[in-house]
């Protein structure tokens, strides 16, 4: 194993992990949390451990990560926008009440229509 594969390549490898080089900016920036999470959670070798925790089974985590990592705009463009109406995620506690009210109104409307055949 050679000491440093980066010697002579002109690539600066700092001890602090991957650095970002913006083609426009001069100085390196640390890789962001998203860069790390999308790699350690979504990539890397999956071999069966003894502690069975399938990251994809953790619904809450998956939802949070999708919100963080997947581009929200891109997802909306292709029609994945379920979280916008998910009462748990939007914190829309009123939603069940509104749905109930909606059902009741429909019921009354149906009753009115049934009771007034002349219209």
């Amino acid at each position, binding site marked *: *194993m050679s000491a440093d*594969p*980066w010697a002579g*390549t*002109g*690539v600066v*490898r700092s001890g602090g*992990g*991957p*650095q*970002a*080089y*913006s*083609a*426009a900016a001069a100085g390196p920036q640390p*890789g*962001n*949390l*998203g*860069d*790390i*999470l*999308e*790699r*350690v*959670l*979504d*990539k*890397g*070798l*999956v*071999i*069966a*451990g*003894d*502690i*069975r*925790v399938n*990251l994809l089974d*953790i619904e*809450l*985590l998956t939802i*949070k990560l999708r*919100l*963080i*990592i*997947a*581009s*929200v*705009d*891109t997802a909306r463009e292709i029609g994945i926008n379920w979280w916008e109406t998910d009462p748990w995620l939007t914190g829309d506690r009123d939603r069940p009440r509104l749905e109930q009210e909606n059902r009741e109104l429909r019921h009354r409307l149906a009753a009115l229509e049934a009771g007034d055949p002349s219209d």
Partner: protein
Amino acid sequence: MTEPHAVWGYAVTARLSPDRLAGLSGVAGPPVRTVAAAGLTAAVSTVSLAEFGEQPLRRRLEDLAWLEATARAHHQVIDALPGPAIPLRLATIYRDDASLAGLLAQRQAELAAGLRQVTERAEWGVKLFAAERPAVADAPERAGAGPGLSYLRRRGHQLSAAEQARQADAVLAEQVHAELRGMAAAAQLRPAQAAELTGEPRTAMLLNAAYLVDDGTAARFAAAVRELGRRHRTRIELTGPWPPYSFALPGTGP
């Protein structure tokens, strides 16, 4: 009485002397050590089952602060390993060393091939952002058109300009990816990251890709990325070198 423990795995490497890991500590603090079998080495550390058992782990994974600290610790160990390494996904945990050693022996051929694939290569991340565009100029007014018709015309003009810009972005992303893929041993596309995460809310991310690049080509690859940014007058960001997370085994991944 000792607390029940488990073994957290970071990565698989070729034969590795334990003293090369001196001073390295892993998730939750304890030192990183090695488990060797079948000519392979796994970098591991001991974790408490009270914290990393199935049930507590599930709960903790929901805690984003804990997840961030753990993800960073996991990554830092993998990044610090000397020589080629196959990173393990976060939260790969074994009952004991023997269980992991058995797995190394059982999958020896596959893991050795995986290590050959990433030897003297590293993963580089490239993110391409859309250029900031000037606001769309209004369509020329036509004499005699009423306000309603003028509005519709203006709106139609804006929409077709947006559609053209979107198509131009897609073409640009494809060109950049094709050129960089040509310099890499392998490539992987990822979903674009959310603006909240990149800290760049003004410009959309057009490309979020990972390339497995020969160490000897890395400087040329970095120069090509810079040149693409200049040529297309757009922001393009290079991160790396990363451990080969996206190329953990030949032929894996989408």
